[in-house]
């Protein structure tokens, strides 16, 4: 039986972050992009919580809560924008969002 240490938590957080990052980079569907972002945010939350616990400091958990709150509002706004965009163009493919081409 292996003891679960901080390193394990951080490893989990890193793995999740990388999964999220790959999702962000590879996915073209905006909805999936949002989900990938959520994974990344949550991986960070795990990191926060784990280190907070490790140091016996509550600010880590507090930060995690903040992140959850921000993520929730972000998703709310983001999904709203997404729906508007879908209604207007009929697509939520990332490559179609190129009106800001330089």
């Amino acid at each position, binding site marked *: 039986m292996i003891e679960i240490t901080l390193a394990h938590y951080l490893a989990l957080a890193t793995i999740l972050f990388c999964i999220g*990052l790959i999702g*962000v*980079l*590879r*996915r*073209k569907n905006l909805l999936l992009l949002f989900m990938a972002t959520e994974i990344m945010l949550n991986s960070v939350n795990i990191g926060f919580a784990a280190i907070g616990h490790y140091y016996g400091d509550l600010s880590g958990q507090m930060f995690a809560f903040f992140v959850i709150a921000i993520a929730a509002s972000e998703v709310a706004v983001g999904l709203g924008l997404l729906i508007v965009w879908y209604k207007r163009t009929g697509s939520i493919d*990332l*490559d179609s*969002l*190129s*009106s*800001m*081409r*330089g």
Partner: protein
Amino acid sequence: MEIYLYIALFAPLVGSLIAGIFGASKKLLFTGIVTSSLLALSFFSSIVLLVHLLGGGDEIHVEMMTWIAAGELYIPFGFLVDEISATMMMVVTLVSTLVHIYSIGYMKHDAGFNRFFSYLSAFVFSMMVLVMSDNFAGLFIGWEGVGLCSWLLIGFWYKKDIATWSANEAFIMNRIADLGMLIGIFLIYWNTGSLQYDTVFAAAPSLDETILVLIALFLFIGAMGKSAQFPLHTWLADAMEGPTPVSALIHAATMVTAGVYLVVRAHPIYELTPDVSYFIACVGAFVAIFAASMALVNRDIKRIIAYSTLSQLGYMFVAAGLGAYWVALFHLMAHAFFKALLFLGAGNVMHAMRDELDPYKMGGLFKVMKYTAILMIIASVALAGIFPLAGFFSKDKILEVAFGSENYILWGVLWVSAGLTAFYSFRLIMLTFFSDSRYKKLGFDPHEAYPYMLWAMAPLALLAIIAGWFEHQFVEFVTQALPMFTFNVADVVWMLIVVTTLIALGGIALAIWTYRDGPLDPKWERNPIHKLLINEYYIPAAYERCISRPYRELSAFFWKEVDLKVVDYTVDLIASMVYGSGKKTHTMQNGNLSSMLGWVAAGAVLLLLAVIFSSGIQVAG
């Protein structure tokens, strides 16, 4: 007395300015008269000063005002009238006054009449500054000033391409020598702390030997330019493109002797550097024979006289180089008179022949231009050095000096040159004035010059005859400022005089006999020696090929290849690299969110790595 000094100096300037005001107007006779009278005034003042000095008066030294003062350098406008400058002033103002009067007739029909007198008087002013300054910087002002006026006057007929080309050549060649002079001046300043003659000459004996040699050499380089010594001699012959009075005044009597004046003036330095002095004498002797040889075959009367001037300047340098400064000055004076006369005579001939210069096309002009012919013959006899004319006293003295100081080679060279001088002088006379009248076939209608032009020449003729008779007074006078040169040829002096006179007479006789029937058979012209001489030893061509043309080509190369294609291209390359990298990287901003997200991630990773590596954390391993 000071007032005479200022009058002598500034009268020509005033005349020049007055004439200059009307420079672009149509011909006004009074500009000629005003400048001439102001010069006469200047001449009069010079005579007063000369008489003052002759009467045992002190030398006059004035300091007008400060010119340049910076650091420890202090250069005033200071003027000095001593025996040397008084002699020069007398010669300069006398010849220029006469040339001015002569020019009123010579330039009568020229559109640039006023301009001409303005330039001519400006020249006299510069020349006066040159000879009267009491310091090397003032000398340099005059030095450049006469160069400038010479440029203006050679290129006086600026519509002629060859005239302006010659003017530029003269200016640039003189500039080359002026650089040497400038360096000499710098050397003097940094070693003696002053440029005043008296301070410098007082300090000279305590200077290091090498420094003295360098000073003497660099100053002589300056003198070589103005006095057209080899290898800077080509400009003088080309300078004959200017109006003839200019050739008489500038390129025979005054400006070209400035180099001799410089050596005479700086004699305390040259006395301390015998090697340099001997070098000067050798250059002089070489030029004497070298120039005389070119005069033998030339077919341009003014060029013949120009080469003769060159040759006589060589004589003067021999005298100066051998330490016989007063002899150099004496020959300078005598030469000024008879050579100016010769040129003015040539001017009359040119006028009569509508600017034709080839003596082969003349002949028999004696019948129509008796007075001019007589004057020119007087000048030629004086030049050839026949007793009792001026040249006999001054030129023979140089030969005696060379012999007496046991420089037999120099003497031999000069002796041969004396024969050549007599020959080419009378070749010119014969071809121009005697034998058959070839000009008639060519449709010329020559006439004698205006009487006042001849009268302006008369004093010069008189002086060409009698100047030599005052040798003793002259020696006594100038040796107050110059060292007496002693040499002992008493036992052979008669033999020397006879030998020299013989070769001169021989030259004359040969010339008369050879050219009794006009020009020689053209087959002579195929002779390689003739070819060499008529092409001036191919030196002008060599200069063109080895200096002028490479300079032009190198300039074009520098501009088109180096400046535009290397230096500027490098700058533009840097700029275009910046632009190019912008062009390449702007594809990153393609507006595609996923690729931009990719760049964000890549950037974050890079930054993270940078932080890790720069913070010095060792990766456990």
